[in-house]
């Protein structure tokens, strides 16, 4: 094999990944659960100052762990269901994050409901808005779907800006925090004393850590659910739709329904993050939900390795963390960020941690983004698309 050292390094890296993945799959379940628990513990210990001094010398580490890092990770997990698993290119994901955020802000300030109730309402609202967007648009494919979702993202933001009833361009202020639990005791032990004065469930203005812990909890629930779906009949149907939608339909997969489900689930995850984020930020306004955020989350999913959960989370972490890490370089930090993105796409076009299935799809040349550019009926189609109902 006459390869240059770079290509050799890349295949070597890929093979190493495969070996590690096989070894991981062959480890017994209880050992894997130990690793999962360790990861959760690590996630909970992350906001400590000793780690922060290296990870972000210029900003408050615990704050950026909540936003952007944690927020991006959860959003990327949600977008991954739509883009990575079902293969539907969604450029307006920020819309669902906005719906969740506005649900929290409006219900919290006007009706004064409890955070947890609003969380449930927000998730339901977002699932419904996912279905509302999906019902007419999921008949389109590839680029066409991407354009429509892009439009939806902008419509939500511009509508919010022009509707004075929900604050217009000023947004909404005075959003309540989640209810605090002070003097937390577990088995009679004062947790606050144990942690050296930290109140883990006291949601105030100053300390970002309690929100971060809440976010970790949300992420763990979301990851468990998404992983379950991925391994079920639903996940297999998504994979089939992503790889060849027509073939999936003639295998008996109700493609339209499963695409709607992917949209609804992705929207719910994005919305739950929106609720949590709004509950911390006190005030929100339409400019928090720019298209750039949709694009950044999509970049995180694609760079991390669409379809592979650990990869997507890593991608989101990198995309969120790099600009903060190099904040000391001021304007140059975006230059470095851009260079890293370009380098990643050159050396790892399939993403940092791609799934093996995904790599095989990319080789086949379907682009790995589902049926991009597939045939679409014109506006005057007569009686077409019976199949997708």
């Amino acid at each position, binding site marked *: 094999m006459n390869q240059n050292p770079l290509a050799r390094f890349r295949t070597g890296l890929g093979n190493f990944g495969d070996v590690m993945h096989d070894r991981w799959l062959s480890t017994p379940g209880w050992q894997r659960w130990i690793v999962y628990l360790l990861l959760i513990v690590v996630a909970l210990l992350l906001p400590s100052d000793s780690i922060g001094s290296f990870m972000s010398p210029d900003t408050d580490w615990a704050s950026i762990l909540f936003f952007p890092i944690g927020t991006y990770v959860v959003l990327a997990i949600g977008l991954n269901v739509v883009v990575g698993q079902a293969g539907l290119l969604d450029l307006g994901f920020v819309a669902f994050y906005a719906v969740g955020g506005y649900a929290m802000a409006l219900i919290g300030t006007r009706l004064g409901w409890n955070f947890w109730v609003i969380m449930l309402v927000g998730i339901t609202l977002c699932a419904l808005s996912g279905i509302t967007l999906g019902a007419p648009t999921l008949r389109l494919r590839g680029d066409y779907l991407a354009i429509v979702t892009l439009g939806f993202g902008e419509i939500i933001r511009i509508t919010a800006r022009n509707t004075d009833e929900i604050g217009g361009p000023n947004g909404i202020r005075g959003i309540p925090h989640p209810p605090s639990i002070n003097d937390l005791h577990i088995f009679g032990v004062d947790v606050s004393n144990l942690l050296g004065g930290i109140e883990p469930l006291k949601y105030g203005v100053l300390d970002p850590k309690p929100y971060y812990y809440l976010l970790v909890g949300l992420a763990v629930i979301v990851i468990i659910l998404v992983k379950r779906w991925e391994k079920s009949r639903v996940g297999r149907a998504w994979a089939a739709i992503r790889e060849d939608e027509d073939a999936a339909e003639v295998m008996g997969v109700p493609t339209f329904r499963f695409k709607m489900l992917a949209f609804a689930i992705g929207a719910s995850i994005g919305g739950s993050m929106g609720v949590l984020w709004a509950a911390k930020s006190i005030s929100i306004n339409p400019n928090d939900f720019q298209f750039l955020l949709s694009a950044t989350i999509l970049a995180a999913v694609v760079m991390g390795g669409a379809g592979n959960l650990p990869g997507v989370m890593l991608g989101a972490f990198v995309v969120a963390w790099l600009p903060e890490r190099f904040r000391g370089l001021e304007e140059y930090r975006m230059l470095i960020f851009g260079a890293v993105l370009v380098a990643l796409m050159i050396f790892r076009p399939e993403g940092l941690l791609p799934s*093996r299935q995904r790599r095989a799809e990319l080789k086949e040349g379907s682009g790995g983004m589902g049926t991009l550019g597939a045939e679409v*009926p014109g506006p005057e189609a007569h009686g077409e698309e*019976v199949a997708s109902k």
Partner: protein
Amino acid sequence: MLLEVKDIHVHYGKIEALKGISVEVNEGEIVTLIGANGAGKTTTLKTISGLRGLSSGSISFDGKDISKLPGHRRVVAGLGQAPEGRGIFPGMTVHDNLLMGAYTRSGDFSADLAEVYELFPRLAERRVQMGGTMSGGEQQMLAIGRALMAKPKVLLLDEPSMGLAPLLVQQIFSIIAEINRRGTTVLLVEQNAQQALKLAHRAYVLETGKVVKSAPAADLLNDPAVQAAYLGGAVAPEVPEGQA
């Protein structure tokens, strides 16, 4: 009659692709649709399997009207398809591709898996290989085997000979004959008219969205006009471009 297509019209935008096609398939038969590029063969098949909606006409299967049934429900009703261009799932192994074929079924289908592997020993050898890394012939075998996993009453095949070496075409066609002998009705769309007419019981000749001839396959094989147009007969007039 197992499958009856009655006077269907199908449009792509404003263009009428099918201008009133009627096809009948009886139980146990192999029926073939032959014709040049753009004659409407694949569109007919896609309309039968539900990937295309029809503007008028009707399709009935097993005595029921399925014209408005979505594609995935037609699979449950008993229509299995190996789609155009094979439609293999590239990121799934051969085994997982076959299991996708049985998506609508529940319970134990190890016997059906064994039957597919027996029909296509090549697939058994490649059980754990990714679908996308297989050769064209192997992918075609996989596409047919996958369609069989749904236990269809009628198997719809869209150009199984496309892009395959002559020897492999022979092999695939003899397997189709075997599948038919085991009790599955076959509707075959082919450009390779010679092979298809040798295999089938009855045939329809399609031209620009219309059926121009229907007869027992053996008769068409000896029909001078069909020979001239599709079989490279001796008295071949100028074959219009794109009909090679």
